[in-house]
């Protein structure tokens, strides 16, 4: 990009020289940035790499000393067992169902609330908003018993819905905060002109706001997805039947108590559990950054 083909006059020569120097400096910068990033990647990925190596080690060699980076007999037996001989596939589908419903539900009601928090004026708006934010500060563990009792009263114990409802509630503060910031970054004139044209609030929401907040929705979706996908304690407490069990409690069943822990199986299950989130990252990464760019700047 910085090449100059023509350097006839001395002035141009010095210019080219300066550019070369600049290029060399930027090359140096690039190399150092690359090497720093590569180092960080190695450190960040090492635990996952070791998890992978554990997962392809034959079961009886997991405890061998010294450990091997490339096991003598690489085997995918742990994956075969996790997928074929345990409830993991069913747990996986259950988690997918619960998490998808959570994400959709939280986006729907979160964006509705965020729309009016960003645009509306009504008494108590700031207090309600503060109330939303304050719920993040409640320590999560103390709510297990009251939530269990609520779910029993609603006859929702042992249903997917119990988890979905609680996860949506948990996702609300961040979703509303993020989307509110994002909607505020949309010029007000857009929906005002639509209102003047006789559009209702719902039409403004549906045809002006929703199409523009895609990246903000993507960012909120990713964060909600990760949090619900990885939730353990409530999932274990509310869901009783094995056929409705979600992924995290399912993986816990591999952790031994009186038999030694099946490390290869846990490692394989862990990596299988990561797949949907990785796929989500691949598709939504650009939107995630863009959504946070516009949304997060409103403090």
């Amino acid at each position, binding site marked *: 990009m910085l090449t100059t083909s023509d350097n006839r006059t001395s002035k141009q020569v010095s210019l080219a020289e300066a550019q070369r120097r600049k290029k060399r400096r930027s090359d140096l910068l690039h190399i150092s940035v690359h090497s720093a990033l590569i180092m960080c990647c190695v450190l960040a990925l090492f635990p996952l790499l070791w998890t992978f190596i554990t997962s392809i080690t034959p079961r009886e060699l997991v405890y061998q000393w010294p450990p091997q980076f490339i096991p003598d007999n690489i085997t995918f037996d742990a994956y075969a067992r996790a997928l074929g001989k345990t409830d993991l596939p069913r747990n996986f589908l259950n988690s997918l169902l619960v998490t998808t419903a959570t994400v959709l539900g939280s986006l729907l009601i979160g964006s509705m609330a965020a729309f009016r928090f960003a645009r509306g004026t009504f008494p108590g708006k700031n207090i309600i908003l503060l109330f939303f934010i304050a719920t993040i500060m409640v320590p999560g563990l103390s709510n297990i*018993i009251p939530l*269990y009792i609520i779910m029993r009263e609603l006859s929702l114990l042992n249903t997917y819905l119990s988890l979905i409802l609680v996860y949506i509630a948990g996702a609300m503060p961040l979703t509303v905060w993020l989307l509110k910031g994002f909607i505020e970054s949309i010029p007000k004139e857009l929906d005002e002109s639509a209102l003047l044209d006789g559009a209702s609030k719902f039409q403004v929401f*549906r045809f002006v706001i929703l199409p523009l907040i895609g990246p903000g929705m993507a960012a909120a979706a990713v964060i909600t997805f990760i949090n619900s996908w990885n939730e353990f304690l409530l999932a274990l407490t509310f869901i009783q039947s094995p056929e409705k069990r979600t992924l995290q409690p399912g993986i816990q069943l591999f952790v031994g108590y009186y038999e030694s822990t099946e490390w290869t199986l846990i490692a394989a299950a862990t990596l299988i559990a990561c797949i949907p989130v990785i796929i989500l990252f691949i598709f939504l990464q650009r939107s995630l950054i863009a959504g946070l760019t516009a949304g997060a700047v409103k403090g």
Partner: protein
Amino acid sequence: MLLLNKIVSKPVPYLMSVSVVLLLIFTSATVFGQSRPVTLRVQTSIDFFNDDPNDSELAYRAAHEAFLAENPNIRIEFEIVPPFELYRQFLVAAEGRNAPDITYQGAANTYTLASSGNVLALNDYMDGHPFLNPDNLQSAILDVATVDGQYYVIPTTTDARVLYYRKDLFEAAGLDASAPPTTRAELIETAQSLTQDTDGDGETDQWGYCFIADNTLHTPHMWLTHVWAAGGDLVDADGKAVYDSEAGIAAAQFYYDLVNTYEVTPSNIIANDYDATVRALVSGQCAMALLGTWSWPVDILGALGEENVGWTPVPTPEGGEAATFSGGWSWLISSRSDHPDEAWAYIEAIASEELALELGRENISTRQSVLSSPEIQDTFVANVGTYAAGAAHGNPQVTSTQPLFDGLRQALQDVIRGRQDAQTALTQAAETYNSRYAR
């Protein structure tokens, strides 16, 4: 879209109709929920129906199916819970008035479950039962199963702590692999010869003796074997902690000496969990280790082979008596179950003599008639079971086992690390427990 638009502009009728619909859904759910034949909810960590069953799971499955065939009006719903979550899961459900009919719990929790009124006394069912009668239980198991003269649990299998030793490493150190240590003095002496720096880098890489002193329940369980052997105990008749009995202080001092005076035990045992200790024995980093009987068939014998590893009773102090700790698992019936008779019938089916014999091949049975049955004679389980029947003690009968054990393991870790002497650490811990949690 138009419809939604209308809804948003007319919120009151909308909200009313939604609440009516929701009300209908909930009422219908409750009505339909009650109009079924008897359904028993069974909470356990054993998944009878997993896709990769072992012999005992197959036996469970057969018994379960036979029961269903005989009782077509009874449905069984399983709730499979990881073993270390069973207790919390049951208590939360009981607190929410939604306890399962049958649950499966560790022996440590019997007293609390019984004294809090959450499980049913089973005397009427058990007395005079041909197989499940209390007289057929090992004495240590019966002690734990009885609370104020009532029986609350139907124990299945139990376990014991024993000393495992590496025969090959004994021979390599010039020791007689057929004469493992039986007393503390012998244990120390043997461990000293086995503690070696095999690669000559100045660091020990083969330790003579390992035990568990991490933040799990294994720590108090193992320490108790030494205390009982010297005639001491964990709590007195009033439920007060007596960690600082003469036997208790001696046992804690023994721990300190193993790590600091004789240097035959690595100091990081305070962080190494059960799994890591099994691994250390198998990899040869520990030549002897105090571990549970459940690890023998697969993890220890299976990994090392008969020629390389053996077991022996827990070494005792000079003049002491044989002692080990037995835990184990039991079936219990919730005190709020609507169908206690059906629940008992189901437990009869899955805790039958036939099934107990099958389970008794791999695990120590709690039933005397199984232990003495000719089918399992001269197996590891029979030998170790006979040892346990004579030496075992069970969990203390206090409401708050967890704080009782927590204070103790903290004190022991302080002693091992030389932060406090045994007397001070144990006395303080006992005072803290007694002032707050003792019943």
